[in-house]
């Protein structure tokens, strides 16, 4: 007979309403065998008591429902963001608070490079360093011989030095959108959007997609999750060729790999029929720790990049409407084909016009063929109004709301992109609750840092960087936010029968916390200390 381990804890938050708080949880064969008091559990027979967590709080392993594997690999480059961060290997990176800090950080990084290596840094956020823009002169002061590229935190911009500029022949005004010019009329080093960044990235070998595919990145990604209490994470877009699937199976199978990984097939990289065939082919390759078979569809761009598809009255600052990635009519066809085949779709929609198009496509598909067995999810779903939540409810569609946006981009949305009316209702968790739409909240790491308890803090407090409350009404309670980052996320990944709560028969996946999120106070939710996780009964202490 299999062995039973019983973990004791100061408090166990189960997310099981029949038994919300217990003192002990028993694990057998990687699954939750029993919860309750030690006396209750003892009647099942022999057990080993593990008191490692006697003064800790145990809750269900946290679930990040939308992020990208690159969140691991990006740490290959030097971090120059404003917030303090810890990398996957436990190294602390204090935030850079001034341009002098940036200089010092880059100087230090430069000493560790070989003679021919470019210096690449990431995470830079000019919003915080307001005195002036970073430009090529700042970077020339670090090195005049080595190409330098500083990728901004939103991945839409980079600043490079003169050496990098001349590698790509960016030496005079070339009349290209996105190559910013200085007062003297020559490129000042700031490059906007992919077309302008590509020549530099190509010459410096900055291939962000490849970065996510490497073994090192997938391993580092597991550590990123572990550090923030995450035991299940969804990689929201991947080409998933066979060799990558083999490697992911291999990496995730290792006993020390601390998460269950879902990876979604890019639904816009091939004709609809081929997407269907490939998704059906991938599904049986799933294992306990690797889940495949769902499809990602990207309909529009991003609000902060002015590329989201927004309904009338469009952008607050008058910028033209954003971009579609698929013709709405074509979306209707694709959605119907995948839906009929029983394939779960995660549909990226930021703007309310994109949300409307996605809901229309789902309505057509579901009217023809209901398939109540599949839960489709609108990803980001940032600008949905209440009528759209009602429609989601009617259609049985879930939402994954981008609550981190409230903090990181909320001020910009209020002042520039969509204006107060729509900014105050964005990422509307309360509306999701009002209309009983299954929902979770996410980071889209590495776009914003992964940390579900921080994301929960955003949903609860709705504070922007400048301290503005972005819509009182859409705030939710701590209990609701904790539900969103556990069972809510599990539902959107169609795994709520396996993970998301500490209940008999589910995987013994836990987040081990130093503080009690239920009592620490709404304003402190992001400060909850994390010991590590337990996955299928195995302890993974943060190292």
């Amino acid at each position: 007979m299999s062995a039973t381990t019983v973990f004791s804890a100061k408090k166990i938050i189960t997310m099981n309403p029949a038994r919300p708080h217990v003192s002990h949880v028993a694990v057998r064969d990687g699954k939750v065998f029993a919860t309750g008091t030690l006396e209750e559990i003892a009647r099942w027979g022999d057990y080993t008591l593990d008191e490692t967590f006697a003064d800790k709080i145990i809750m269900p392993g946290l679930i990040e429902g939308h992020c990208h594997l690159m969140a691991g690999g990006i740490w290959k480059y030097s971090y120059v963001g404003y917030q303090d961060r810890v990398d996957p290997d436990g190294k602390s990176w204090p935030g850079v608070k001034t341009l002098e800090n940036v200089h010092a950080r880059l100087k230090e990084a430069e000493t560790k490079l070989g003679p021919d290596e470019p210096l690449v840094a990431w995470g830079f956020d000019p919003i915080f360093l307001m005195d002036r823009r970073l430009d090529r002169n700042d970077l020339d002061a670090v090195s005049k011989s080595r190409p330098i590229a500083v990728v901004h935190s939103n991945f839409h911009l980079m600043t490079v030095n003169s050496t990098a500029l001349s590698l790509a022949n960016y030496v005079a005004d070339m009349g290209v959108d996105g190559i910013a010019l200085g007062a003297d009329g020559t490129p000042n080093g700031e490059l906007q959007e992919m077309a302008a960044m590509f020549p530099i990235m190509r010459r410096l070998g900055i291939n962000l997609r490849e970065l996510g595919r490497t073994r090192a990145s997938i391993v580092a990604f597991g550590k990123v999750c572990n550090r923030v209490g995450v035991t299940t994470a969804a990689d929201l877009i991947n080409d998933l060729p066979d060799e990558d699937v083999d490697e992911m199976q291999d990496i995730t199978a290792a006993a020390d790999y601390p998460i269950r990984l879902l990876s979604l097939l890019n639904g816009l990289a091939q004709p609809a029929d081929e997407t269907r065939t490939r998704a059906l082919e991938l599904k049986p390759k799933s294992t306990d720790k690797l889940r495949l078979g769902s499809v990602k569809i990207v309909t529009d761009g991003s609000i902060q990049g002015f590329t989201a598809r927004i309904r009338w009255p469009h952008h607050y600052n008058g910028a033209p409407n954003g971009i579609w990635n698929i013709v709405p009519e074509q979306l209707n066809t694709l959605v119907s084909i995948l839906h009929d085949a029983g394939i779960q779709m995660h549909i990226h929609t930021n703007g309310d016009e994109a949300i409307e198009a996605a809901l229309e496509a789902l309505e057509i598909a579901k009217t023809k063929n209901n398939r109540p067995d599949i839960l489709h999810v609108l990803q980001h779903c940032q600008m949905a109004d209440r009528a759209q939540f009602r429609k989601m409810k009617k259609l049985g569609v879930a939402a994954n709301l981008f609550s981190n946006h409230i903090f990181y981009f909320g001020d910009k949305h209020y002042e520039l992109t969509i204006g107060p009316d729509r900014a105050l209702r964005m990422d509307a968790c309360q509306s999701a609750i009002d209309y009983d739409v299954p929902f979770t909240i996410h980071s889209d790491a590495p776009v914003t840092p992964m940390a579900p308890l921080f994301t929960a803090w955003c949903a609860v407090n709705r504070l922007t960087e400048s301290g503005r409350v972005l819509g009182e009404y859409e705030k939710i309670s701590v209990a609701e936010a904790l539900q969103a980052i556990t069972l809510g996320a599990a539902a959107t990944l169609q795994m709520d029968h396996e993970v998301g709560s500490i209940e008999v028969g589910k995987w013994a996946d836990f987040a081990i916390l130093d503080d009690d999120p239920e009592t620490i106070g709404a304003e402190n939710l992001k400060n909850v200390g994390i010991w590590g996780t337990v996955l299928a009964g195995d302890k993974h202490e943060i190292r």
Partner: protein
Amino acid sequence: MNQRDKPLPMTVLSGFLGAGKTTLVNHLLRHSAGQKIMVLVNDFGELPIDQDLIEAENGDVITLANGCACCSMGGDLYKAFSTALDFTPPPDQLLIEASGVAEPKRIANFAKAEPDLTLNGIVTVIDALNFEEMQSDPRVSDVIKAQISAAHLLLVNKIDRASERQRAEVEAKVREINATAPLVAIANGALASEIFFGPKITPDELPMIDAAHLSHEMQFDRWSYRTEEKIDAEMLRNMLRSLPPSVLRLKGIFCRTDKPGVWTVHKVGSHVDIGPVSRAFNPADTSEFVAIGMQNTNLSQFLDKAFSNLK
């Protein structure tokens, strides 16, 4: 990364869903006139490109997935462009079949920024039969407008099935959005490769190829010009910009008054590009130009005049 010894000409083929982009691509691959064409497909809504055309070795196809920068970090674009640029053997032409909702200007920006690419124009196909209906969808009307206004060459397709009135209405509507680009009516996506990619006038291929390739294209005229005199590049640029839309494509190699070496020029619509010929080449101080224009527009007459006025 491979360093190319001359930039790869990139043509963006844009047009809304169902306009006939893929049929045109198939036609161009079938009549490639010996050029190796790499097609970057960004549209999965229309018919697929004929497999046998790809396998016939005058074409290679790379797929380019759509995605927003926030989720894909531009990864798809990076992969597609670097594959095209590093491809061996290097292609002669890069044709991007943009998705039905792509804004061609954004894609064209890649060719303007990347030193190993040169923009060979934005060609937009319009469906003569469906244009009105598509335009009436407010979700995409701005996209269709952007595709037409960015075009350097406009193709009104399915003209054989359109009525006279339909044709006139579509042309009028298109002209409201873009008054300067040449507008050519085509049927079944058939267009000579020389018009799509421009006439061949590379240093390797002088003297100019014979006119036989155009013989089945009755609606076009061609013109060529040769001079021993050096040319003022700025005057040339301004003159080319002022030419009427009946001039579809113009290419040339020439010697400049102000700088040494050999230079190339190509024009399609409002897009005029002048650059140095990077390979060692000495055409004995002769400048040569070739153009393709609409028939019955006195092409030779006014081009001869415009070029002789350059001095």
